[in-house]
């Protein structure tokens, strides 16, 4: 067996770094940060704990950006942001949040992000690996209308799982009335937080933006609840894979379009042909054409029939003997809740129907995998 190389010395730390070490985390590099990969419980049990109780994740490496309209009118910021994303930002009601992506000139995805309507500003959450690219992109295109503030002085915690609501309600009763994709300021244990009811596990839960100076104390307060335990990036990845959610850099990137990635649900009617604010985003010609005619390849769920995990990079074949591959796996893991391997990948749209049988080449063996509708584990968002 081989050990991973030790972490590079120049990695950044989140405000919870000391807490991770104290809690026995095994740390590893991720997007320029030294992050907890797992704690003493281990990836498998951390994953299962999140699905039955509540997991606390440090996701402070993610970028938090405030977009403020120079005019003071939030609609101006919303309209400006629509230059960069094919989603309905102007129609986003106050205290609501929406999934979006920045597209490039060929319809590829520069990053995926969350946009929260916070009354006087838009709160953006972007991927750690793309913060710098996103910040420059926003400044280049929106500086005439908005100021762009990267909030370096805030941490981000995620509290996920069926017990999350009760845990947070004990500290802040009003949070229980929030619904999936609500976002609002909440005072938690004395800290001024911006809370959204969302996450990256498929479970009900919250993402909590907290001032960096209050982050460690808030984490400790949440961990005092017997149902809460810290969860590392290892289980975060298996949880999101079971939930069928994309990881930027693996499942989506500048060479995949939203339609290919099966994310067209995030493009509202108002931005499509016949809508009031049709197009006018980078790569609109490609994306519009694919919305109407379909894409030639699609991201799909893949369920291996055998026990062997089928991981990212594995090539897919139409039959057991074909010489030419037809696609590749972009995310794959053992799903602890699925109790078996789960994967996602890109296949020709002609081979994308559920139950289509394909073959994955794992260490020279062609293993049968079935196209499966995502997610592998049903989402349990609090929609009503």
């Amino acid at each position: 067996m081989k050990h991973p190389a030790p972490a590079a010395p120049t990695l950044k730390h989140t405000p919870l770094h000391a807490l991770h070490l104290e809690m026995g985390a095994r740390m590893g590099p991720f997007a320029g940060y030294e992050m907890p990969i797992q704690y003493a419980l281990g990836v498998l049990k951390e994953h299962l704990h999140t699905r039955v109780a509540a997991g606390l994740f440090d996701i402070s490496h993610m970028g938090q950006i405030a977009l403020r309209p120079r005019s003071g009118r939030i609609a101006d910021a919303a309209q400006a942001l629509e230059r960069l994303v094919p989603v309905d930002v102007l129609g986003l009601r106050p205290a609501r949040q929406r999934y979006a992506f920045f597209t490039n000139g060929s319809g590829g995805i520069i990053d995926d992000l969350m946009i929260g309507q916070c009354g006087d500003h838009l709160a953006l959450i972007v991927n750690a690996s793309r913060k710098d690219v996103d910040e420059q992109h926003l400044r280049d295109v929106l500086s005439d209308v908005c100021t762009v503030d990267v909030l370096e002085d805030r941490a981000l915690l995620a509290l996920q799982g069926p017990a999350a609501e009760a845990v947070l309600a004990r500290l802040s009763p009003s949070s229980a009335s929030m619904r999936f994709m609500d976002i609002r300021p909440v005072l938690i244990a004395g800290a001024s937080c911006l809370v959204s009811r969302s996450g990256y596990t498929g479970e009900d839960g919250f993402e909590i933006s907290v001032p960096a100076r209050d982050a460690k104390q808030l984490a400790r307060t949440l961990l005092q609840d017997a149902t809460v335990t810290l969860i590392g990036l290892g289980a975060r990845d298996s949880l999101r894979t079971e939930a069928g959610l994309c990881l930027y850099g693996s499942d989506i990137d500048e060479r995949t379009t939203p339609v290919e990635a099966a994310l067209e649900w995030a493009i509202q009617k108002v931005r499509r042909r016949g809508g009031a604010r049709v197009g006018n985003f980078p790569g609109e010609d490609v994306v519009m054409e694919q919305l109407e005619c379909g894409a030639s390849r699609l991201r799909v769920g893949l369920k291996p029939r055998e026990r062997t995990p089928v991981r990212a990079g594995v090539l897919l074949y139409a039959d057991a003997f074909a010489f030419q591959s037809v696609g590749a796996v972009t995310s794959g893991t053992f799903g602890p809740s699925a109790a078996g391997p789960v994967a996602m990948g890109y296949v020709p749209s002609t081979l994308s129907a559920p139950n289509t049988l394909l073959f994955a080449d794992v260490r020279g063996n062609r293993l049968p995998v079935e196209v499966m509708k995502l997610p592998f584990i049903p989402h349990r968002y609090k929609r009503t």
Partner: protein
Amino acid sequence: MLKFTQEHEWVRIEGDVATAGITQHAQERLGDLVFVELPVVGKSFEKGAPAAVVESVKAAFEVYAPIGGEVVEANPAIVANPSLVNSDPMGAGWFFKLRLANPSEVDALLDEAAYKALLD
């Protein structure tokens, strides 16, 4: 005779048959195992060649033949229940038995003291 490799495998040599597995240290580092793939009986390996695969939720790892030889038995219990490798790595969690091709290779393996020194 119990021996170890720098790649965190153990070998118990009885006559011309070596039983092999991964060490306590290895199973701790790998975490909960969810999948094991073992070599078929009759297959021969050179010392250091990849002979088995273990997978955690996160990743796959190769287990090398600690010594050259032909597989005479593989442990179906760990294929059915990979967690046996975590709970009893040096006992019920054994991987495979090899008939030694070259018994002098045993001399190059680490004894328990040398292996423990490696971990410090």
